[in-house]
């Protein structure tokens, strides 16, 4: 055998090893997360129950119904629109596993873009999983995903994405769930997921719908509530109440010209009151330093501390970071405030629940303490 042939065979074997080693990790990311139905979960459904075209697709995510059996309103909470914004999924999980609903009902979709959880964004070096120790000493694991739909489910991207309103966006935004509303039953994979979620809101007549997000600390809309104009009064009162709890929020009205987002299209294409909320997540920012699971969970990052000193951020940032407990706590407390104020403004559509930890309880007890133990 010639020397060149020997080298070629060696390189082929090496390449096969790399392919198998990397492939096993990538395939592992497809496995579903464990979410345990809590005391008020009466049933689950799939997105394809509302839009049958999605049946059998990876994106056919689970919908959890927390029903009291007592007449009242309907609140929908959406997590995982962007799977690289973990407090959205984790807040939805605590609602599912802890909420006790005594009037009306809550519908929770914890992993809105399930496809996005099945991969990570290239060049973002994200951790694949995040881990929590539960009260009983067990460990619960959740996936940290990508901002967008997995290219194995929707490919190729166009050079530019022209949305349903004729606006041009970067080509990769064609896989961004929060740019594809109100969805299109004949559109691309992501637009079809959007359409399915719109159908949930319409068919279940959701009175209040909340989309949970996170933003990088250098982004201006952060620790914020963005409300459709029909929801702005409700959001205003909630922001004042949150200030009474020492939780500062900025309030933004959904810009009419920025189309395809939940806070705009949910309100325009259904009767629901549409709200989007943001917390501060260093692990998706461009200024962050070392990227690992600790950064996701603690938000501690020396680069962001420096950026805060330079006045480049829109949230205070110090050595304590912004831990996941703070971010989930903000989402859950703000959700509670919104629901309570909806009950006050429209008592006939009240939704009453308890059992979900608030900001201060989470900061004291830790996130894992409120997760149900896995069997």
């Amino acid at each position: 055998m010639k020397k060149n042939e020997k080298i070629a065979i060696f390189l082929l074997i090496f390449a096969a090893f790399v392919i198998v080693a990397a492939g096993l990790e990538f395939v592992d990311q497809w496995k579903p997360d464990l979410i345990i139905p809590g005391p008020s979960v009466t049933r689950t459904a799939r997105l394809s129950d509302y839009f049958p075209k999605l049946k059998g697709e990876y994106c056919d995510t689970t919908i959890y119904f927390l029903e009291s059996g007592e007449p009242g309103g309907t609140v929908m909470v959406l997590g995982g629109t962007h799977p690289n914004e973990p407090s959205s999924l984790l807040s939805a999980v605590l609602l599912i596993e802890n909420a006790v609903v005594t009037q009306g009902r809550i519908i929770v979709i914890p992993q809105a873009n399930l496809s996005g959880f099945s991969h990570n964004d290239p060049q973002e070096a994200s951790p694949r999983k995040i881990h929590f120790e539960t009260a009983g000493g067990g460990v619960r694991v959740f996936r940290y995903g990508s901002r967008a739909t997995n290219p194995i489910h929707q490919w190729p991207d166009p050079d530019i994405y022209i949305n349903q309103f004729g606006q041009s966006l970067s080509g990769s935004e064609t896989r961004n769930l929060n740019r594809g509303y109100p969805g299109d039953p004949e559109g691309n994979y992501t637009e079809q997921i959007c359409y399915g979620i719109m159908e949930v809101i319409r068919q279940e007549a959701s009175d209040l719908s909340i989309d949970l997000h996170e933003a990088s600390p250098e982004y201006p809309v952060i620790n914020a509530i963005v409300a459709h104009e029909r929801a702005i009064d409700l959001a205003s009162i909630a922001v004042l109440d949150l200030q009474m709890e020492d939780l500062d929020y900025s309030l933004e009205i959904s810009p009419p010209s920025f189309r395809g987002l939940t806070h705009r299209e949910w309100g325009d294409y259904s009767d629901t009151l549409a709200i989007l909320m943001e917390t501060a997540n260093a692990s998706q920012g461009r200024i962050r330093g070392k990227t690992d699971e600790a950064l996701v969970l603690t938000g501690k990052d020396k680069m962001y501390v420096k950026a805060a000193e330079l006045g480049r951020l829109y949230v205070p940032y110090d050595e304590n970071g912004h831990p996941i407990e703070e971010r989930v706590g903000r989402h859950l407390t703000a959700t509670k405030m919104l629901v309570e104020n909806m009950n006050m403004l429209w008592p006939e559509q009240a939704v009453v629940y308890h059992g979900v930890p608030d900001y201060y309880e989470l900061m004291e007890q830790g996130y894992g303490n409120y997760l149900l133990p896995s069997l």
Partner: protein
Amino acid sequence: MLSIELLYFVVMVGIFAVCCFKFKLPVGIAMAISAISGCLVAGFGVPIRHLIEGAFNYLNTILVIATAMIFMKVVQYNGMMDTITRWLIEKYYSKPALLIVGLSFIVVFPGMITGSSTAAVLTAGVLVSPVLIYMGLPKEITAAVVAMAAVFGEAAPPVNVNALIIGGGIDLPYIGFTLPLLVLTVPLIIATSLFLSRKYLKVFNFEKIKDNLPDSYLADFGIRLFLPTIVLVVFMVREAFLPKLFPTLGMPVYFLLAAIVGIFSGKKFNFLKISQEAVHDALPVLGILMGVGMFIQVMTLTGVRGYIVINCLSLPPYLLYLGIALSIPLFGAVSAYGSASVLGVPFALALLESNPVITVAALSQLAALGDLMPPTALAGIFAAQIVGEKNYFKVLKYCVLPAIVTAVWSIVIMIFANALAKILL
């Protein structure tokens, strides 16, 4: 600001330099080795998943380049390129300045439609470069004219991917960019092409060269000769302006379909053989892109990326614009689109007091300059390749001054963003 991340960066760059210059390894391999070194020194071991994931960022770009190279060979071999060269020279030899500016705009066009300088060089650049060479321009200057026009094409409206990336990062709709981008690019397209070809703008002696002109195959094949380009333009324009007509197939498929059409359009050639030739020629660049992908992923993993960003943002106000003008094109050494995302977005956020549309437009022009920055330097490498110049640094040498002028022009527009917004928006 001294930091452990600086050490990681120095190690990565040092290992890259040693692999490249001491051991003469291909750039792509050198980048992969330097990425692995960064992981080791930062205590991450050899994270195969991160290395592969980073490289995969350029999968689409790699497919575009490979198929565009096949397309380029097809229009060379089918006789279309020779025919166009002969026609343009016979028609416009008496107006060389007009011809050169016109040829530059032909190169700009595919960039305007795709937002990619590579696409511009490998499509229109292939067609116009023989004309420039026949007009007497040395091949290095020909390649520089093509590379600069392609870079301006990447920034010119209607499709500017860098602006879309930066705009996406600050939630700025892609509205109102056309005029600012025209102001940013059009004067520079004209000035740069005339500047680079200034010594060759005399009316050349047509009688002397007419016997050496390539053959025209128009009489043999008629309009059929242009079918590959017509098909490609139809696909590109359809995607840009009628996106709902049928699903996106992607640029690689468009290039490949156009190339296949080329088999039946003119002179006979062995499609399989020229495809192998094309991919073989493209392999070093494809390797560089994979190495760059690993390099950036490791920079992010280890915190080096954040270190670079925060140091750019730490510049005092009077140096901020200088920092922008230098850092964004320099980061293009790893990727122009990457530079738009990694540096363009934080800078756009830092300059929110200025009109964001004008600011983002100017930042996108600076990011496009990154395609001239080695070792990737996609515009420079491919422009050199289409004129048969092996050392692309000889091409980049002629791009330095136009690139500096472009950077200055972009910064001036950024400084006067608010005043310009009143006129342009």
